[in-house]
C-alpha cells in the first residue's frame, strides 16, 4: 500500500506544488485546507473570507485527482494563536503568530487529523528541509522559513515532508506552471499575517480587547531616564527598533528601545541602546538532544536576520540564556530566538528579553 500523506493546503503556490510533487512521487495524497478564522463574525450572513483560498485549494486537488477536505480549526486557532497574539501585544511584546500556528495548529491539530485518516506523513509548503529526523534550513536562503518551525514537537519531524524546501521560490513557480497549476502559479504572495487584514494589527487587538484597551490608549513617549518627550497613540502600535511615530528633534536618530505596559510607556533611545549582547528566551524547545551550557551555536533573533555566533550561558527548565559574540540590534520580546548549527535547526524559544551585556543576569533592556 502506498504511503499516505496529508498535505496542508492554503490555496497558495507553495503548498499546491508540494501536493503535486508528492502525487508525482507516488504518495497517496490527501489535501486539507484549514479554516482558521472568519472575518465575517460581525456580519453573520456573509460567507467566510478565506473562501477564495479554500476554493483554489479544492480546484488544485480536483486537478490532481486527490480528495480535499476543509478542516474547521477556528476555535483552536482562535485560542492558541489569535488570543495569544492579542495578549502578547497587550503585554508590550511583539508576537510572532506563525510560530504558534506551526507549533499548535499545523503540526499538532492537523497531525491528529492525519492520524484519523491513517496518514503516516504530514506535508506543508514550507521552505525548510528534514534529514534523518532533523530539521534543516530551506535551500533558498532568501526564502528559508525554518525560523518559524522551531516549536514543533521533535518526534513530528520524522513524519514531515517538505517538498519545496529544496527549491527557490522562482523554481516553485516554474514548477507550478509545468505541473499545470495555473490557478496558483502567479498568485501574489501575501506578506500580511493571515488573520490581520491590511496589516492593521491594532484593529484585531481592538476587536478582541475593546477599543478602550490600555494597549491602544495614549501614553507617554519617554527617554530611558524617564523624561517624557511626547505622546503616542497606544503602545501596541510600537515594536522594538521602530522609528515611525518616534518624535524628532534629537541630535541623532531615535528608536523605540523598550515598551513598558505598566506605565503605558514607549521608551526611545539612540541606536546603540538597541544593541544587545545577550538574550534570554523561554518555552525552549529542542529539535536535537539538549545541548549543555557552554555550547557554541548560531542564533537568529528575527526572520531574515543573519545568524550570530553565541554560546549558552544558562539553562534552567525551559529558559535559556545566551551570550552573543557580536551585538545584535533590536532584540524584541515575543519574537523567536532560533538556535542553528549551519543549516541544522537545534531548537528555539520565545524571546523574553535582550541584554546589553553578557553578564549572567541580564538587565531589562534600557531599563
Amino acid at each position, binding site marked *: 500500500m502506498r504511503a499516505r500523506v496529508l498535505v496542508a493546503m492554503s490555496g497558495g503556490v507553495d503548498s499546491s506544488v508540494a501536493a503535486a510533487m508528492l502525487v508525482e512521487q507516488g504518495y497517496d495524497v*490527501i489535501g486539507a485546507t484549514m*479554516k482558521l478564522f472568519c472575518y465575517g463574525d460581525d456580519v453573520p*450572513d456573509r*460567507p*467566510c473570507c*478565506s*473562501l477564495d483560498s*479554500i476554493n483554489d485549494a*479544492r480546484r488544485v486537488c480536483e486537478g490532481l485527482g486527490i*480528495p480535499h*477536505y*476543509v*478542516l*474547521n480549526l477556528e476555535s483552536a486557532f482562535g485560542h492558541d494563536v489569535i488570543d495569544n497574539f492579542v495578549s502578547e501585544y497587550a503585554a508590550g511584546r511583539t508576537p510572532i503568530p506563525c510560530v504558534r500556528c506551526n507549533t499548535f495548529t499545523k503540526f499538532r491539530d492537523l497531525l*491528529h*487529523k492525519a*492520524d*484519523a*485518516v*491513517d496518514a503516516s506523513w504530514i506535508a506543508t509548503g514550507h521552505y525548510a528541509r528534514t534529514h534523518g529526523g532533523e530539521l534543516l534550513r530551506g535551500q533558498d536562503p532568501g526564502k528559508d522559513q525554518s525560523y518559524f518551525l522551531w516549536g514543533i514537537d521533535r518526534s513530528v519531524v520524522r513524519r514531515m515532508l517538505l517538498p519545496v524546501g529544496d527549491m527557490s521560490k522562482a523554481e516553485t513557480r516554474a514548477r507550478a506552471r509545468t505541473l499545470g497549476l495555473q490557478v496558483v502559479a502567479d498568485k501574489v504572495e501575501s506578506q500580511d499575517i493571515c488573520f490581520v487584514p491590511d496589516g492593521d494589527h491594532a484593529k484585531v487587538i481592538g476587536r478582541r480587547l475593546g477599543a478602550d484597551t490600555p494597549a491602544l490608549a495614549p501614553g507617554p513617549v519617554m527617554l530611558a531616564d524617564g523624561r517624557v518627550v511626547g505622546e503616542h497613540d497606544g503602545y501596541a502600535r510600537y515594536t522594538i527598533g521602530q522609528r515611525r511615530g518616534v518624535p524628532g528633534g534629537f541630535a541623532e536618530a531615535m528608536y523605540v528601545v523598550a515598551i513598558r505596559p505598566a506605565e503605558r510607556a514607549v521608551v526611545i533611545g539612540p541606536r546603540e541602546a538597541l544593541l544587545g549582547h545577550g538574550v534570554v528566551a523561554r518555552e525552549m524547545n529542542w529539535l536535537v538532544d539538549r545541548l549543555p551550557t557552554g555550547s557554541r551555536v548560531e542564533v537568529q533573533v528575527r526572520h531574515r536576520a543573519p545568524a550570530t555566533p553565541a554560546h549558552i550561558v544558562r539553562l534552567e527548565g525551559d529558559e535559556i540564556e545566551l551570550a552573543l559574540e557580536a551585538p545584535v540590534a533590536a532584540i524584541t520580546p515575543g519574537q523567536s530566538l532560533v538556535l542553528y548549527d549551519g543549516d541544522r535547526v537545534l531548537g528555539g524559544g520565545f524571546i523574553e528579553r535582550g541584554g546589553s551585556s553578557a553578564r549572567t543576569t541580564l538587565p531589562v533592556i534600557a531599563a
Partner: protein
Amino acid sequence: MPQPVYLDHAATTPVRREVVEAMEPFYGPRFGNPSSVHRWGREARAALDEARERVARCLGARPDEVCFTSGGTEADNLAIFGPLRSQQKKGRTSIVTTPIEHKAVLAAVHHAARDGVSERMLDVTRAGIVDTTSLDRVIDDTVAVCTVMWVNNEIGTIQPIAEITERVKAHGGIMHTDAVQAFGKTEVDVRKVPLDLLTISGHKIGAPKGVGAVFIRRGTQIDPMLHGGSQDRGRRPGTENVAAAVALARAAELAIEERDMECTRLATLRDTLEEGLLARIPDAVIHGRGTPRASHILNISVPGTDSESLLMALDLAGVAASAGSACQSGSVTPSHVLTAMGVRPELAVAAIRMSLGSLTTPEDVARVVELFPALIAKARRLSGMAS
C-alpha cells in the same frame, strides 16, 4: 476499493432515468417559450400547464395553487416574504418559527426580523420535535406568518404540522411548512391540513437541482420577490424552466406511486443499520430515536469522536455521509439543530447523518454496520491518546 456507498440522500439524490427521459424533448425540439403565441410556444405552454396539474395532483392542490421556483430556498423565501406585507397591513407584526429549521427559513426569518418584524421561536423538545406546550406562549393574533418544517432534514423527526396549523389558523395567521424532506416520505396532502403555503424541492426526489415549487392556497395574498413579466400570475416572473417543471412533475408522481413500498423498504434498512450500530457501539446516541421519524434519516453521535474526522475517514473508505450542516467553505460546524435540542456539545460535534434512498441496498447497510464501528474504535483510541 469496494463499491462506494452513498448515504447522503437528504443532501441530494441522483436524477432518475424516467425523469431524464421526461425532460429530454425540452432540451431538443420542444424548446419553445411558453409565453410565445406560435406553435413552439403553445407546445411548451401545454407541457408547463400539464406539469403544474401533475404536481398539484401530487399535493392534493389545484393547478393554480402551484408555483414553480428555482428550488427549496426560493420557495421558502417566497412563502415567508410573499404574504408578509399584506399581513403587516392588517397589523400583524410577528413571525413564528423553530430553531431547527433549514437555513433557507431561518435566515429569511432573521432577515425579516432585521426589518422590524418580531421573531418568535417555538420550543423544541430534546427528542427534536416542536414542544406543543409552547404554542400558547408564542401564537396569538399578532402572528403574520408561522413557518415550521414538516420533517427535519438533519434528524428526520416529523413535526406536528396539523396541530400547529390549526392553532395558527385559529388566530388568523398564515401557515407555511417546508416539506422538502417530507414529500415522498410521509403523506403530504393539503386537503387534509389547512396550511396556506408548502415548499417542495426537486433534487431530493430524483429531479435535478434548481427546481422546486411552492403551494399557495387560493386566496393567499402574495407579493412577488422578483419583478418582471406576468408569468405564473405575476407571482414568479421570468421565463419558466419547462424542462425542470416537467422533471419535478415526473419525480413527484414517482415518489407518490412508490411511497408506501419505498418507505417500508427504507425503514427496514434504516432500522437494521441503527440496530447494527447500536449493538456494536452501545453508547452511541441516535438523535430523535423514539420520536416519529421519516424512514430515510439516521443521525448518530458517538462520544469521544468528531464528525469532521469521521466524515473524512468514511469518504476515504468510499462511504458518503454528512454532518449536520456544512458552511459554504465545506467545513463542518456544530449543528444548530442538535444545539437547539439541548444535545451536549461533545455529542453535537460528533454527529453523523446517514440518509438512505434509492441507491441504498442491504449490502450497503451491512458494509456500514461493519465499517463504522471500526472507524469509531480507531477514532476513540486516537482521542484517548491525544488527551
